[in-house]
Every structure is written in C-alpha cells, then in structure tokens.
C-alpha cells in the first residue's frame, strides 16, 4: 500500500499526476489552481519526472498546447479554474471531437462578474456540453485517486475522450489533508503506457480538425455522443479495478443513510462531507433524512439516479451555480429531466447556495431539510430558491 501522508491537496494532485508518467503539461496560473502548476513545474525542474512543462501565455494557449501534444501522442495534462476554464471553452469541444485523451484538473471557482476568486461550480457548468467526461471529488483522497484514474479512463480504446476532475477551489485545493498516496510501482501496475489511436507523425500522416460540412457533421456529433455514453462502462470498470487494487471504491452516485429516508438531499463535490454531518444530526433527532452524492456529471448516470430516488417522497437538490432565467440550478434541471418519465417521482426542492465562496455550514443543510419537511402543502416544490440570500 502507498504511504499515508499529509499534504496540501493541490500539491498532492500534482504529485499524483507526476506518478502517471505524463509527457507534457501546459499550464497558465490562476488562483486557486496555481499550486498544481507550480508543483508540476518543480517536479519537472527537479528531474523527478521525465516530462516537459510549458509556461504558456494563457489558458487558451494551454488547452491548445495540450491538444497539439496529445495529437502527437503525448500523455498531456493541464489544470485551470474559473475564468481560465471559460477562456478554454472554445477548445474543449475540439479536444473531445478529436478524441484526444487529455486530462485536466479544475479547481472550481466562481466566474466573474463581479470578480471573485472563491469556490462554487459556475465555471464547470457552462462546459457541460463540451463532450468531456466530468467527475467531482469530495476530498483530497478522491482528488488524487480520480486524477490518476482519469488517465486510464481517457486513454481506454473504447473511450478516447478528455476527462476533467472537479476539485473545489480553496475548500479542497488549499486544505492540508491526510491521505494515502499510491507508490510509483502501484501506479505503474495500474496505468498502462499511453497508446494513441492516431498520432500526427510524418511517417504516417493524418489530418486532425479537418473541415466537415452538413454531409458529415451530424454523424460526427452522434459518434461523439455515443463515445461519451459508452464511456460509462469503462469508467465503472476502472473504478472497480481501483477498488480491488487500493480498497477505495467509487460509484457514479453514492448514498448515505438513504435507504429508509423520507427526504433526501443531493450534493456534488466537497459539500458532501458537511451534508453528511447534517444528516447525522437530523437522524439524531429522529428525522429520516439521507444523502445522495453525485460524483459523475458526464456521462450523466441516469439509471443510478433513478434507482436511488425511486422511493423517496421529497428531494432537495443543491446547486452551486444557476441557469439564469431558466429552471433553476443546472443539477436540479438534470435530475428533473432524468425523473420525468418515472411513474413515481419525488417532490424536488432546489436550493442555490455556496456561491462565490459563501460558507455553507452543517446547520444550513439541517435548515433545508427542516424547511422542506415543514412544507406540508408542497408549495415550494419544483421551484428554486437562493438559500440564505440577503434581500
């Protein structure tokens, strides 16, 4: 087994990526991702890993550079956050359409304006439809595990798609946490060398990013959609393999005290642990509350979500982003859509909170459950509310 150590999560993510035999990283610094970039550059500079580190001039260039490197057959990595991710946006669908298995850490942070550097999910949500596999992590250990597994999933011949690992900025990236860091031998045994399906090479020329008009465009989009849908099987296999090797198992949707619950709460990312404490408190006073944690955001785990929410009467969906002028938070919208055709559906309450780094404490989750249970006329169901907003 790997060593049990304490380390800042951002640094640990860079360490974990360093174990993955990457060929190149192109990173532009942005708070709160910068420590990932800095530590990767240290690993390269100190000769600890045999990789190239490029200090590009923007995130747009970072994503372009890893697309170029991945196209040439290099195992390529980048990391970003907030405005940086927004600036990469143009390139994200191109990476997935070209089936380039790039992996990227996203230190989730609020998007301007106003300018803010703290945590929420408003940066990743607009990237939802870019064709990337997208996972959320709850703590430092998951951040490390998912960062390593991302390469194996992305590079699997049945997937060949880019993966982003969402790590809550500051709340996770800047925490010093205890975890088990796999050893180099273990990672080598888990992660095979990268064999690209096609590379830019003068001896065997290919064209990437070629023009496609209406005669082929739809077919290419369908192929991309199928690839992303089919990736779920590989994701589950890789997570299973990880569980067998390291004893830590992951599922697309996880639950906590959910089996007999009258009310369920759904979270994504680092808030899961806080919400778990709230559930314990509620259970302590006899309230049958449970928790659902959504780990896999794309491909969306429809069957798992349906199975978990089958019998519950009330569901609270928490969102750390909003679709302005739309149905509420993006997670709420997905869950509602997933349950539409089901014979029995819970009443769904949507709370938008934790925006721009606003702290969400245990008591607030408790408050949500209390409020929802008190809503006997179901007045607030199917709507959204900015939790704790000053008006």
């Amino acid at each position, binding site marked *: 087994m790997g060593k049990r150590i304490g380390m800042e999560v951002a640094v640990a993510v860079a360490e974990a990526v360093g174990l993955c035999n990457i060929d190149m990283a192109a990173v532009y*610094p942005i708070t709160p991702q910068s420590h990932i970039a800095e530590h990767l550059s240290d690993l390269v500079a100190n000769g600890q890993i045999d990789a190239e580190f490029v200090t590009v001039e923007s995130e747009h260039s970072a994503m372009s550079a890893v697309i170029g490197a991945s196209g040439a057959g290099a195992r390529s990595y980048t990391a970003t956050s907030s405005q940086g991710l927004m600036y990469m946006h143009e390139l994200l669908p191109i990476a997935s359409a070209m089936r380039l298995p790039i992996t990227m850490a996203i230190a989730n942070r609020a998007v301007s304006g106003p300018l803010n550097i703290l945590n929420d999910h408003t940066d990743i949500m607009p990237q939802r439809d870019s064709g990337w596999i997208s996972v959320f992590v709850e703590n430092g250990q998951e951040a490390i595990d998912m960062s390593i597994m991302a390469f194996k999933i992305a590079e699997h011949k049945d997937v060949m798609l880019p993966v982003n690992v969402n790590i809550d900025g500051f709340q996770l990236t800047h925490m010093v946490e205890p975890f088990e860091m796999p050893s180099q031998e273990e990672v080598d045994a888990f992660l095979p060398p990268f064999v690209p399906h096609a590379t830019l090479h003068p001896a065997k020329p290919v064209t990437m990013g070629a023009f496609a008009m209406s005669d082929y465009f739809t077919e290419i989009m369908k192929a991309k959609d199928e690839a992303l849908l089919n990736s779920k099987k590989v994701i589950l296999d890789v997570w299973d393999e990880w569980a067998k090797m390291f004893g830590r198992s992951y599922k697309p949707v996880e639950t906590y005290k959910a089996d007999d619950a009258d009310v369920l709460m759904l979270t994504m990312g680092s808030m899961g642990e806080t919400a778990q404490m709230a559930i314990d408190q509620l259970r302590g006073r006899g309230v049958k509350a449970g928790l659902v944690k959504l780990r896999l955001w794309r491909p969306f785990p429809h069957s798992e979500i349906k199975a978990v929410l089958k019998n519950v009467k009330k569901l609270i969906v928490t969102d750390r982003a909003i679709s302005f002028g739309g149905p509420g938070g993006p997670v709420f919208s997905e869950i509602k859509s997933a349950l539409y055709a089901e014979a029995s559906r819970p009443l769904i309450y949507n709370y938008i909170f934790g925006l721009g780094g606003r702290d969400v404490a245990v008591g607030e989750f408790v408050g949500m459950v209390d409020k929802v249970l008190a809503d006997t006329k179901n007045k607030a169901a199917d709507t959204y509310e900015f939790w704790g907003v000053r008006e």
Partner: protein
Amino acid sequence: MTTAKAVKNVPPHPMDALLRTERIPHIWCPGCGIGTVFSAVLAAIKNTGWDPNTIAMVSGIGCTGRMAGYIRLDSFHTTHGRALPFATGLKLAKPDTKVIIVSGDGDLFAIGGNHFIHAARRNMDMTVVCVNNFNYGMTGGQQAPSTPLGAKTTTSVNGSPEEPFNLCDLAATCGATYVARWTAMQVRSLRSSISEALEKRGFSFVEVITPCPSSFGRRNRMGTALEMMKFYQGRSVIRSDINPSEALVDIDREIVVGKFVDTERPTFMDHYAKVNRLNLPQWRAMHSDHQKGR
C-alpha cells in the same frame, strides 16, 4: 489589518480627491512598487487639469489591475488580458474621454498580448501604463513573458528558459507614438513621462520597472523592497532617443530608461472618420444625458 481607529488618525493623502478612500487599505504588499506608480498616475492626472468626468481608467486582472477599484474616476476592471479591447470600445463610444489603461506585464503581454499589438498598430488615442515586475505577482510569482532569461519564479525554479519581451521595443515596432521606460524609484521622470503620455494624441506607452519583493525579489534573493528599488535604479542608465530595440532591460547589467519614441501619426479615429463617417456628424458622445447628470 489596519484598524478603523488607525485609519482615522492617518493624515489625508494629497491624492485623496482622486481616491476611493473607503476602499483603503489596499491589497498591495508592503514595498510593492505599484503604489508609487499609482501615485505618479494620479499626480499626472491632476497636473493635466482635465475635468475628472472626462477621464476613465481601464485595467486588466492582477495586482496592478486593482488600481481601477481605488481611483475615484469612471473605471473598468475588466477580464484578464482584455483591458485594451474594453478601452477601445469605450473610446469609440465616447471619443472625448481620456482613456488610461493600467495593467501589469502579465496581463498586457501574456494573455492580452494580441490586443496590445493591435491597439498600438491602430494608434488608438489612449495611454497605457504598464507595471513590469517580471512575474505574475498576484497568483504567486510565476514565469511571465517579461521574466528575464535565467530568473527564478515559482514555475521556473531553475531559472526561466525563455527570452523575455523588450516591451518598449514591441510598443514602438507596433506603432506607438510615445514610448518611455522608468524604474519605480525615478518618480519625477516617471510622473512627467505619464503626463506627456496623457497629453499625447495617439497610442502612448509607459513601462515602469517595479519591485515585487514578495515574489520575484524573494525567489531571486534580491533583498528588501527598498534594496530592490535601489537595485533597479542603480542598474538604470538614461539613454533617451536611443532606438528602442537597443533599450534593453538586462537586470544583470543595465536597465535602459528614458523616452524612446515621441512622434506623430494619424490615429485610428482620423483614418476611420475619413473612410466611414463621410456623411455623418463628427464623433460625439453617445449618451449626452450621461454627462448632464453629473
């Protein structure tokens, strides 16, 4: 943190009229050169005698970008690298506005480099003051396009392997009509250069070599903020009217400072009016009501 009581006892700053004092204390580190540059910009603005309602400050992201939040003028703190396009739009909509752009080397020449060359090429009538501290200060001192070859940063612990830009040469090559460089210690020259730049009709550029003691200085063992100030000043050689391509910033040998370009050529507005506004009235403020209410 400065307590409310301490703030109360601080004597008024000569530039208070141009500051959002309620936003002070500022975020800059002790010994940072940005305060000096900011003071010089404010003094230069004051010297012009312009109506404050006709001046706007536009900034990008980074430590220097925060100036726009502290100045008591119309100001726009934009996205990373995009100060110049925002400023271009502002200038086109309100051509009478005097537009001052303040930003760092990273914002203007890394992520926003593209916009700089085009604003200079078009000869947009505006003034750019660039605080060059040789690294990305706000995110923790990473390698920038201005980092000297071999200098250490948090993403180049063994020294930067890249050649930096000569910012003044770039500005001049792209068509700027006024180009000057000073260190943050040469306050009088800096102030008069910014004044000249503001009065200049055309794209004017002033680079200020500024200590970043918290990041660049610490990584490169340059001592305290004051020692860095004195170091840059000591390395500086005034060689005005030299060809900007020869005006090198070599912190190991010499930092060439002075005024390198002061010339005239038609601005973007001049050309544009000739081509596109033949039958239209002269440039005017788009929202005349805006001024009335002030």
